[in-house]
C-alpha cells in the first residue's frame, strides 16, 4: 500500500530557469508538487495522469525515495520514505520508459547484481531468474551483452530487474515512453500480472489509451496539484457522453479537488 499525505516538493529554480519559464509564458512555480493526497491499494492499479511537467515523475521519485519531500509524508508498505528509506526501497520495484541497463553486462549478470543488492541469495536469484527467463524467453540472449540486444530484449530484462525481488509495491513512471507496440504490450502485461499477484501498482502516463486499458483508480495531476482523485469508473460515469480526452481537459481546466 502507498499513502501520500499532504505531499509538497519545492525546487529552488535558478534565475536562468525562471527566465526561460517566463519566456515560454509558463507559470513560475517552484512547487513541483503542491500538497497532494492519495492512496494506492494492493491488487489495484493506481494511475497518475497528467501532461508533461505536471509533477508525475517528481511524485513517483519521492515515493521511490530518490527525492525527499519538502513537506508531507509518504508511507510505502508501512515504511516512511524519509525515516526508513532503505526499507521502502527493499519493498518496491521501479521501472521507467527511459530506464537503462548496463550495456557491458549480460542479462544474467544484471539480474544477479540487482538480486544481490536486494539481499537475495544466489539460489533465490537462480530460482526467480528461471521463472522469468522462461516466461519472457530470455534464455537465448541471457549471456549476450546488453549493448548487443534489441530494445524489446532490453525491456524484457528491465522487467525482470524490476520484479526479481518480488516487491509488494511496483512503481511505473511512463513505462512505455519511446517503446514500440510489442514492447509496450509486454509492459502492460507486466502491470496486469502485478495486479493479479496482489501487488500495489502505481503508474504514471500522459496517454489516455493506457489509462482506459489499465486504471482501477485515477488521479489527475496538473501544475503539481491534484484535479481528480477517485475510482476510474466513477470518473467515466461523471463524464459520460464525452471522450476521455475531453474529460481530462475539462478536469484539468476545472476546479481543483483535494
Amino acid at each position, binding site marked *: 500500500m502507498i499513502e501520500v499525505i499532504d505531499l509538497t516538493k519545492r525546487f529552488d529554480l535558478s534565475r536562468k530557469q525562471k527566465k526561460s519559464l517566463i519566456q515560454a509564458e509558463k507559470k513560475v512555480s517552484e512547487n513541483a508538487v503542491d500538497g497532494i493526497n492519495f492512496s494506492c491499494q494492493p491488487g489495484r492499479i493506481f494511475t497518475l495522469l497528467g501532461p508533461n511537467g505536471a509533477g508525475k515523475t517528481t511524485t513517483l521519485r519521492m515515493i521511490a525515495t530518490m527525492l525527499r519531500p519538502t513537506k508531507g509524508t509518504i508511507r510505502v508498505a508501512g515504511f516512511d520514505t524519509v525515516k526508513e528509506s532503505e526499507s521502502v526501497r527493499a519493498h518496491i520495484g521501479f521501472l521507467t520508459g527511459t*530506464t537503462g*541497463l548496463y550495456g557491458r553486462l549480460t542479462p544474467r549478470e544484471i539480474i544477479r547484481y540487482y538480486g544481490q543488492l536486494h539481499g537475495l541469495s544466489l539460489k533465490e536469484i537462480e530460482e526467480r531468474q528461471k521463472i522469468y527467463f522462461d516466461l519472457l524467453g530470455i534464455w537465448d540472449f541471457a549471456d549476450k551483452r546488453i549493448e548487443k540486444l534489441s530494445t524489446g530484449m532490453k525491456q524484457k530484462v528491465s522487467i525482470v530487474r524490476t520484479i526479481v525481488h518480488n516487491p509488494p509495491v511496483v512503481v511505473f513512471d511512463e513505462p512505455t515512453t519511446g517503446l514500440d507496440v510489442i514492447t509496450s504490450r509486454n509492459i502492460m502485461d507486466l502491470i496486469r500480472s502485478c495486479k493479479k499477484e496482489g501487488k500495489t501498482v502505481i503508474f504514471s502516463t500522459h496517454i489516455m489509451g493506457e489509462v482506459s486499458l489499465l486504471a482501477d483508480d485515477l488521479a489527475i495531476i496538473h501544475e503539481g496539484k491534484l484535479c481528480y482523485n477517485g475510482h476510474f469508473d466513477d470518473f467515466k460515469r461523471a463524464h459520460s457522453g464525452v471522450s476521455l480526452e475531453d474529460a481530462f481537459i475539462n478536469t484539468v481546466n476545472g476546479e481543483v479537488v483535494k
Partner: protein
Amino acid sequence: MTKFWIVFRKEMIDTLRDRRTLLVMVLIPLLAFPLMMKIVTSVTSAQVKKTMEKRLVVAYIESIPNSALLTKLKGESLFDLRTDISEKEIKTGIENGRVDFGLVLSPEFNEELSANKPGTLQFYYKGSDEGEMTKKRIDALLEQYEEEILNERFGRLGLERNIASGLNIVHRDVATMKEKIGEKIGGLIPYLFIIFCFLGSMYPAIDLAAGEKERGTIETLLVAPIGRMTIVFGKFAIVVAAGLFSVVLSFVGLFFSIKSMSEIPEEFIGAFLTSIEPITLISILLLLIPLSVLFAAIMLAISIFAKSFKEAQNLIGPMNFIVIIPAFIGMLPGVKLDMMTAWIPILNVSLATKQLMMGNADAGLLAIVYGSSLILATVALLFCTHWFNKESVLFRS
C-alpha cells in the same frame, strides 16, 4: 558479500569491459615507457650516427702553405676539402649550406709557429644543433694538431710535456649512482606516474557517474536498498584502483623496457634497479595512494555533477593542466622538497618521489607530504559524498 563489495565487483567487471578505459588504463601505461625509450634511443643513435658519418665540406685557405695541417685534413676520408673558395664565399657558403666549415690560416701562421707562438686561424661554422655536433670532428683534428705542435716544441727544448700543467686535479664525485640517476630521471618518473594515475582514473570516473546518468541506470541503483554512501564508496574504490593500477602497469613497462634495451649501459641498468628497490617502490606507491584518492574524489564529484559523458569530459579535460603544471615543476632541476613545497599538492608528491628515488628522503618532510595529501584527499572525498546526496546535482537538468 557486503553491498559495498557487490557494487565494487559489478563496477570492476563493467570497467574492465570498457575498451576506452582499457586503452587508457592498461595499454597506454604499459606501452608508454617502452615506446618512449625505444623512440628516444633510436632517434638519438640515428642522429649521432648521421652526424659522425656525414661527409663534410671543409673550405681551407692558407696564404703560405702549411703542409702539416693540410695533410691532416686530406687524410680524413669523410672531408671534402675545398681550397678554391675565398674567405667571403666561406661565410655565404656556410649560410646557404654549400659549405660546412671553413678554416682560414692567418698570413703570419707559419711565422707564429716558428716563433713558438700560437698560430692564429679562423674557424667558420654554424652553431646550430647539428653544426655543434659535427664541429667536434674538426675540433678533435685541430686539438690533435695542436698537441703535435706542443710535443715538437717541448721535445726541441728538452722539456717534459706536463711542465705546462700547473695542477693535476683528480675529481672525486661522492654522489652515488643512485643519486645521479635520481637527479637525472627522478624528476621524469614521478611526472609520468602522476599523469598515469590521473589518466587511469579519468574514464572510470566519468563512466561510473556521468555515464550512469546518461544511460539512465542511476535511477535503478538509487531505488535499490543500498545507502548512497555505499554506492559512492563502491564507485570511488574502483576509480582509485584504476589510477593505481595504471601506475603499477607503467612501472612494469618501465622495468621491462630498461631491462630489455640493449642501448642502455649495464652500469645504468644496475644502478637504476638499485634505485627502485622494493622499499622505495612501496613508499612511492604509498605516496600515490592519497593522490589517487584526491584525483578520484574530484573527478567523481565533477562526473556526478555532469549531465552527460561529454559534459563530464569537457569539465574534467582542463584538470589536465592543473595536474601537469605542478608535476612538471617537480621535474625541473633545482626544485627541492622543503617546508614550503611539501604542502603544495601534486608538486609535493612529485618531489618526494624524486627524493625517494635518490635515496635521501627526509622523514619529516615525507610525513608532511603524506599528511597533507591525506587531509586533502579526505576533504575531497567528503565533498564527493555530499555532492552525491544533493538532489540538485544528481537530478540536474
